[in-house]
C-alpha cells in the first residue's frame, strides 16, 4: 500500500478535474457523490498506508515516494515527493476522514443551490491542496499546498460572491494569508541558504547536527511562525477567520475548523528540531502569542450573537492553545488537541449548519431557543461537542487540553494561569451558546414572517445526509481521548506513534513539579470546566445574574477598525511617502541625469559658432598641443 501513496492526493485531484469538465452534466447530486467518493477513497488508501507503517518497526516508519524531479536548478534540487511518516499519516487520516464526512454533509446542505457542482469542485481542489501540504517531503511541496489551500479558501469563502460581504471576506482572507506567506517564503530562503536543501529530512538533520543553530534557526523558526500565524489565525493575523464565516457552513467546518487552520501547527511540528535549536525566547514567544490569542479570542466569543461567529472565535482560541503547546515543547499534545479539536469543532460547525438549515438560514442566536425538541439529533450531537470543547471528562477535549496545560505549567506557571482562565471562558461561552440555541423559550415565533411563505414557520430536523456525519463525529468526540490518556505510559498511544518525528524537540517534563502533581492539575481542570458551565447556566439559564456582554468585546476589541484607521491614516501617509520618494527621488535621479546631460550639452554647444575661423583656430590649437606633446615625449637634447 505504501507504493500507492501518490493515490491519496491523486483521487481528489481527479475529482476536481472530472467535475471541472463534466460538472454541469453531472449536476446535483451526482457531483457531490463523486466528490465524496474521491475523498473517501483517499481515506481508505491512507488507512492502508497507516497499517503498513504500523507493521514496520519504529525506526523504519519513514517512506518517501518521489514522483519526479521538479526543480533541478544548480544546487537546488527539489523533487515532487511525498513523505509517509507518523505525523503526515495522522494528518492525512483526519483530513480525509473528516473531509469525506463533510462532503457527505454538504450534499445535503447545498441542496438546491444553483452552483452545486462548483462547490464540490472547489472542495475537492481544497482537499487535494491540503494533502499536498501535509504529505510534502520538502518545504516547496508543502508551500504549493499552502498556497493552494489559501486560494481555495478564497474561492469558498466568497462562494456566494453576489453578496458583497462575502466577496470582501474572501479578499480579506487572501490578503491576510499572503502576509503570512511572506514569512513562509523567507523561512524557505533562509533554510535553503543555511542547510542547502528544502527537504524536511535535510533541514531537521542540519538542526540536529548543529549546522543550523542560534540566529539562523531562530530566524527560520520565527519566519515560519509568521506564516503559521497567518494560516492559523493567531494574533495579529487572525482577523480573516471571523469574517470567513460568510462562506457556507461546510466550508467553515472543513477549512476553518478542522484542516486548513491546522496547517500552521503542522508546519511548526514538522520543523520542531529547528525550533529546539533556536534561542530559548523563540518558543517562549510562540507560546505567549498562542496563549494571548487564546485569551483574546475567548473574551470576544463571550459577546457574539451570530452562531457561527462564536464558533469562529472559539476556533481562534483553540488554535492559540495548540501554539501554546508548540511553544512549550508539547508537540504530541499539540497534535492530540488538533485531532480532537477537528472532531468536536467540525461537529459543532456542522451542528450549527444544521440549525441554520432548519431555521431557514437564520443565524442570530437571539432569535433561536428551545430547539432541542424540534431538532433532537442535532441537539444531542451538539451537546456532546459542547461537553468536549468545554473540557468535561471523559470527552476528548478534556484530555488534550489538560495535556497542553500540563506542559504549559512546566514551562511557566503564568502561561498555565492564563490558559486556565481561557478554559474557564471557553466553558462559559459555549454553555451560553447551547442555552441560547437549544434551551430557554422559543424566540423564533416572532420572526416567522421574515422567512418566506412557509405558512406556519417551524424549525425542522435536517436530512440524513446531514445528521449521519454529526453522529459519527459525536462518537469520535466521545472516544477520541483514548489516543493519549495520562494515566499510564502504556496508554500514550499517540506519543509512541509520533515519537520518531518529535523526539528531538519534545520537552521532557519528567521530574518537574507539574509532572509529579499532574493529577492535581487534572482535578483543577475539571473544577474550572464545571464552574464555567455553572456560571453560564446562572447567567443565561436561570437568569439570576445579568449578562456581561460589553460592546467592546462584541466589536472584537475594535481590532478591525484599528487596522482600518491605521491603514487609512498613518498607513496611507507612509504609502504616499514611498510613492513620493519613487516619483521625486528615483525618477528624479533618472530624469536628472538626462537634464544634466542636456544642460552640459547646451554649454558645449556654444563652441559651435558656425564660423570657419573659430574651427580653424581649434585646429591650430590642436596642432600646438600635439607639438607640445611630441616635444615633451622625448626630443633628443
Amino acid at each position, binding site marked *: 500500500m505504501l507504493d500507492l501513496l501518490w493515490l491519496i492526493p491523486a483521487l481528489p485531484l481527479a475529482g476536481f478535474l472530472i467535475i471541472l469538465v463534466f460538472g454541469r452534466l453531472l449536476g446535483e447530486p451526482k457531483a457531490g457523490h463523486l466528490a465524496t467518493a474521491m475523498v473517501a477513497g483517499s481515506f481508505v488508501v491512507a488507512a492502508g498506508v497507516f497499517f503498513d507503517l504500523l507493521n514496520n518497526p519504529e525506526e523504519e516508519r519513514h517512506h518517501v515516494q518521489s514522483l519526479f524531479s521538479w526543480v533541478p536548478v544548480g544546487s537546488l534540487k527539489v523533487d515532487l515527493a511525498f513523505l509517509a511518516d507518523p505525523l503526515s499519516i495522522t494528518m492525512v487520516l483526519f483530513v480525509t476522514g473528516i473531509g469525506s464526512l463533510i462532503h457527505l454533509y454538504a450534499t445535503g446542505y447545498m441542496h438546491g443551490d444553483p452552483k452545486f457542482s462548483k462547490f464540490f469542485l472547489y472542495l475537492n481542489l481544497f482537499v487535494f491542496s491540503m494533502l499536498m501540504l501535509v504529505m510534502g517531503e520538502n518545504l516547496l511541496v508543502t508551500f504549493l499546498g499552502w498556497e493552494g489551500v489559501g486560494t481555495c479558501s478564497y474561492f469558498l469563502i466568497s462562494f456566494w460572491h453576489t453578496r458583497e460581504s462575502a466577496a470582501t471576506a474572501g479578499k480579506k482572507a487572501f490578503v491576510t494569508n499572503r502576509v503570512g506567506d511572506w514569512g513562509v517564503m523567507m523561512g524557505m530562503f533562509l533554510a535553503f541558504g543555511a542547510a542547502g536543501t528544502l527537504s524536511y529530512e535535510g533541514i531537521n538533520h542540519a538542526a540536529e547536527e548543529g549546522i543550523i543553530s542560534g540566529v539562523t534557526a531562530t530566524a527560520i523558526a520565527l519566519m515560519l511562525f509568521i506564516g503559521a500565524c497567518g494560516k492559523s489565525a493567531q494574533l495579529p493575523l487572525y482577523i480573516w477567520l471571523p469574517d470567513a464565516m460568510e462562506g457556507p457552513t461546510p466550508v467553515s467546518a472543513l477549512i476553518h475548523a478542522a484542516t486548513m487552520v491546522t496547517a500552521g501547527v503542522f508546519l511548526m511540528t514538522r520543523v520542531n528540531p529547528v525550533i529546539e535549536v533556536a534561542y530559548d525566547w523563540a518558543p517562549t514567544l510562540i507560546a505567549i502569542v498562542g496563549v494571548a490569542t487564546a485569551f483574546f479570542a475567548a473574551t470576544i466569543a463571550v459577546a457574539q450573537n451570530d452562531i457561527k461567529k462564536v464558533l469562529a472565535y472559539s476556533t481562534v482560541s483553540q488554535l492559540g492553545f495548540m501554539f501554546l503547546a508548540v511553544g512549550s515543547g508539547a508537540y504530541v499534545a499539540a497534535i492530540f488537541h488538533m485531532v480532537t479539536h477537528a472532531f468536536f469543532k467540525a461537529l459543532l460547525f456542522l451542528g450549527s449548519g444544521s440549525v441554520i438549515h432548519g431555521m431557514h438560514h437564520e443565524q442570530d442566536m437571539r432569535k433561536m431557543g428551545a430547539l432541542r425538541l424540534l431538532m433532537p439529533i442535532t441537539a444531542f450531537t451538539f451537546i456532546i461537542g459542547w461537553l468536549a470543547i468545554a473540557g468535561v471528562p471523559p470527552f476528548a477535549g478534556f484530555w488534550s487540553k489538560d495535556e497542553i496545560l500540563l506542559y504549559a505549567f512546566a514551562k511557566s506557571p503564568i502561561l498555565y494561569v492564563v490558559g486556565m482562565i481561557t478554559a474557564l471562558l471557553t466553558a462559559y461561552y459555549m454553555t451560553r451558546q447551547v442555552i441560547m440555541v437549544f434551551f430557554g423559550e422559543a424566540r423564533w415565533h416572532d420572526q416567522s414572517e421574515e422567512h418566506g411563505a412557509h405558512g406556519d414557520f417551524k424549525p425542522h430536523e435536517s436530512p440524513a445526509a446531514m445528521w449521519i456525519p454529526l453522529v459519527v463525529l459525536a462518537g469520535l468526540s466521545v472516544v477520541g481521548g483514548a489516543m493519549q490518556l495520562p494515566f499510564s505510559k502504556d496508554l500514550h498511544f499517540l506519543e509512541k506513534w509520533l515519537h520518531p518525528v518529535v523526539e528531538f524537540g519534545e520537552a521532557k517534563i519528567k521530574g518537574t513539579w507539574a509532572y509529579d502533581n499532574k493529577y492535581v492539575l487534572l482535578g483543577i481542570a475539571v473544577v474550572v470546566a464545571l464552574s464555567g458551565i455553572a456560571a453560564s447556566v446562572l447567567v443565561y439559564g436561570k437568569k439570576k445574574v445579568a449578562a456581561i456582554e460589553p460592546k467592546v468585546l462584541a466589536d472584537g476589541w475594535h481590532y478591525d477598525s484599528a487596522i482600518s484607521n491605521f491603514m487609512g491614516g498613518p498607513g496611507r501617509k507612509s504609502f504616499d511617502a514611498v510613492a513620493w520618494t519613487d516619483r521625486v527621488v528615483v525618477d528624479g535621479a533618472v530624469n536628472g541625469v538626462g537634464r544634466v546631460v542636456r544642460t552640459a550639452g547646451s554649454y558645449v554647444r556654444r563652441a559651435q*559658432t558656425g*564660423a570657419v*575661423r*573659430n574651427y580653424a*583656430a581649434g585646429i*591650430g*590649437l590642436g*596642432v*600646438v598641443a600635439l*607639438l*607640445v606633446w*611630441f*616635444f615633451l615625449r622625448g*626630443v*633628443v*637634447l
Partner: protein
Amino acid sequence: MELGVFVIAAAMVIVGAVGVILRPNPVHAALSLVLTLFGVAVHFVALEAHFLAAVQVIVYAGAIVVLFLFVIMLLGVDRTEDITIEPFKVQRPMALVVGVGVIGLVTAAVSSSRDAIGRGNGLEIPTVTGDNDSNVRQIARSVFGDYVVAFELTSVLLVVAVVGTVMLTRRIKSGKGES
C-alpha cells in the same frame, strides 16, 4: 656670399608674409604674396633646386597669384576690410598662441636636433646624391621612375578639379538659385 643671399631672400620672404597678413587691401596682399613667392624661389636656387625655382615662379607667382587677382577684380572685393574690428574676442589671442606655439616649438625641435641635421660635417651642405646629372634630369628620373603612378594621378586630379569647378560655378537658369 651664400649668407648674404640667404639673408636678403629671407628678408623678402618675411616682409612679404607679414605684408600679406597685415595689408587691409586684398590687392596689396596679393602683391606681397608675390614678393614672398619670389623670395622662396631664390631660396630654391640657393638649395640647388633649379627646376623647382622655375616652376615656383611660373606656376605660383605667375599663374596662381594672377588667378587671385582675376577673382578679386571679378568680385569687386577690393574694398578694404577693416582689420581693427574682430567679432570673436577670443580669436586674436588664440591666433597668437597658435603662431607663437608653432614657431617656438618647431624651432626648438629643430635646434635640439642640430647635430643630426645641421652642422654635421662642417660648413658645407652636401650636394644631392652625388649625382652629376642636372637637377632637371634628376627630378625627371624620380617623377617618371619611382613616382610615375602619383604623376598619373595628379593629372587625373587636375582634370577633376577643372571639371568640378566648372560644375560648381554654373549659373542654373531654372530659377533654382545658384549653388
